């Protein structure tokens, strides 16, 4: 008895040792840079290159300038818009996909995954070809006599929105699909049997039970969407400026590292706050483990 307990303890210790490199890796390469970034955001920019170890709140104070506040607002707005549209499209598609017969399901799943095999940058340039004046979209629309002259969509806000929706839609589709696929459809039949119309049965049963998947999708879409800078870069030209773009610019062109760090910290805090609020509102913990 005693002997077997020590064996179990020893095994636990061995397992902990196996996992140790992971902890070290995480500390070094995830937590480390994060702490460095927070520290950096309180330091002073050097005259020419790098930083001086001089504590200051200036970087955060600078963020309060209207131009930056507006950028934060713009980023948040775009992220919310992207997430909301992806929610509708992704739910519809994920639901549709999960209700196909298994062999068709596999094919659709493959189609959703295929884009991941190529670089997302390449795919965005594809959108450039579609959106540019006299590009694919214009050729089709004008060919069908729907429009008379080029729409000049490239480097506009709608182009950025479409790009964002496109880039993040698969995450929404896959997380919705996973939870719809697990649905017990006899519950929907029970609801119909008890007097619910198809819409009512969907709202009271299907949607409620697949909510965890939708919520996961929202988080997986919202977090990246607030920081994606290259979509705005490629499809928005310099007309749409997001926090991500400013950070990139401050870091790479202006070389104001402390200010870029302060901006990243605020962005991170804002995202965390949004997710915290969101989890509060949706009571996600109540739903976990139900499906």
């Amino acid at each position, binding site marked *: 008895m005693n002997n077997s307990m020590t064996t179990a303890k020893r095994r636990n210790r061995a397992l902990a040792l196996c996992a140790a490199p992971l902890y070290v890796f995480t500390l070094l390469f995830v937590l480390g840079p994060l702490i460095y970034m927070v520290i950096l955001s309180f330091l002073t920019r050097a005259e020419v290159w790098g930083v001086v170890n001089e504590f200051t709140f200036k970087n955060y104070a600078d963020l309060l300038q209207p131009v930056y506040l507006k950028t934060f607002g713009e980023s948040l707005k775009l992220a919310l818009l992207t997430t909301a549209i992806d929610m509708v499209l992704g739910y519809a598609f994920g639901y549709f996909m999960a209700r196909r017969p298994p062999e068709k399901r596999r094919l659709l799943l493959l189609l959703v995954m295929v884009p991941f095999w190529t670089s997302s940058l390449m795919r965005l340039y594809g959108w450039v070809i579609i959106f540019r004046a006299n590009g694919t979209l214009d050729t089709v629309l004008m060919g069908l006599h729907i429009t008379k002259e080029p729409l000049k969509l490239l480097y506009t806000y709608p182009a950025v929105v479409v790009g964002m929706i496109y880039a993040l839609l698969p995450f929404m589709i896959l997380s919705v699909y996973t939870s719809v696929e697990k649905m017990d459809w006899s519950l929907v039949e*029970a609801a119909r049997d008890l007097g619910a119309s198809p819409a009512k049965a969907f709202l009271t049963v299907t949607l409620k039970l697949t909510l965890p998947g939708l919520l996961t999708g929202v988080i997986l879409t919202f977090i990246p969407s607030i920081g994606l800078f290259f979509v705005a870069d490629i499809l928005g030209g310099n007309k749409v400026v997001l926090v991500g773009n400013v950070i990139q610019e401050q870091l790479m062109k202006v070389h104001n590292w402390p200010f870029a760090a302060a901006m990243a910290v605020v962005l991170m805090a804002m995202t965390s706050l949004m997710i915290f609020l969101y989890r509060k509102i949706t009571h996600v913990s109540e739903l976990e483990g139900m499906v």
Partner: protein
Amino acid sequence: MEETILVLDKIKKSFDGVSVLNGIDLEAKRGEFITLLGSSGCGKTTTLRIIAGLESPDSGRVLLSGADVTDTEPNHRNVNTVFQNYALFPHMNVETNIAYSLKLKKKKAPEIKKTVAEALALVQLEGYGKRMPSELSGGQRQRVAIARAVVNEPEVLLLDEPLGALDLKLRRQMQLELKRLQQTLGITFIYITHDQEEALNMSDRIAVMRGGVFEQLGSPAEIYELPRTAYVASFVGSANILTGRCAGGGDTVAVDFPGGTGSALRRDWQGREGDSVTLAVRSENVQLLSSDDSRGIPAAVTETRFAGGMLRISSKLEDGTEVVISRYGIGTDLVSGDAIRIDWAAENAVIVLPDSEVAHE
């Protein structure tokens, strides 16, 4: 009691070209307990789903209280179902599950509360209202499913093997409770099972289903005492099926078997001398005679075993037909290979339709 509530009129249904129902006809009276009995794949669940509106028939009609509801959506039929897996909503507690249909009907909160409390009392689950389905045992879930289905006051309650997942002791208890419930509520029950004992215990009428048709529809006594087909006789009464040739006779038909002669009451059989006759004789009605007896048919013992308080002796006729004989008692001198003769009283043999003459398409 005599008012007709549900009519199924020549219902046919096939899935992917495979026909599942081949013309189902049924008339159920108010307060009647009808059981669809059959092994899996016989079409009983499909029949139930068509009544509920969860499946639509390829042809035929469904009438509820005289109105044609064949094309009516399930939510507009005054029929409720107790599903095989209970299908309780996992995200709602017991009360909310039961109140589901009442809320859809926009009933007032106090009324809902009262109805739910009554339903919980009816299924003896007072105090369980706030529990989640995952916190209940199988038997309790089953009761919640019944309560949820009956609060809607359906004209017909459909039950799809509701006791299938319960252990034997609980099954017996729930059989009694269901029967009591059905009598209290006066609702027509259409009950599905593959357990013949359950069917015989609870039903007013039993429909024995096979291959998408009712092989026989009748009271438990009729089904048990006077099976119409060989299948019904063997499925419900575990009867021996023997085929011989009619050797004449009036009210009692003599039947020739290899090496001997048996007999059966003619009842409404129309056959004549020389015709093939199929008989159903239950094992407890087969008499065991010594091999030098002049009566009966010769047979050879193949196995003896003691099961369920009965001694069961398996034997083979000369033509290879297997006949089982049941006896009370535990001991026998018979061993495999012993020659015996078997016989039965004419009134204990029922002339049935052999499988070859039953239409299943």
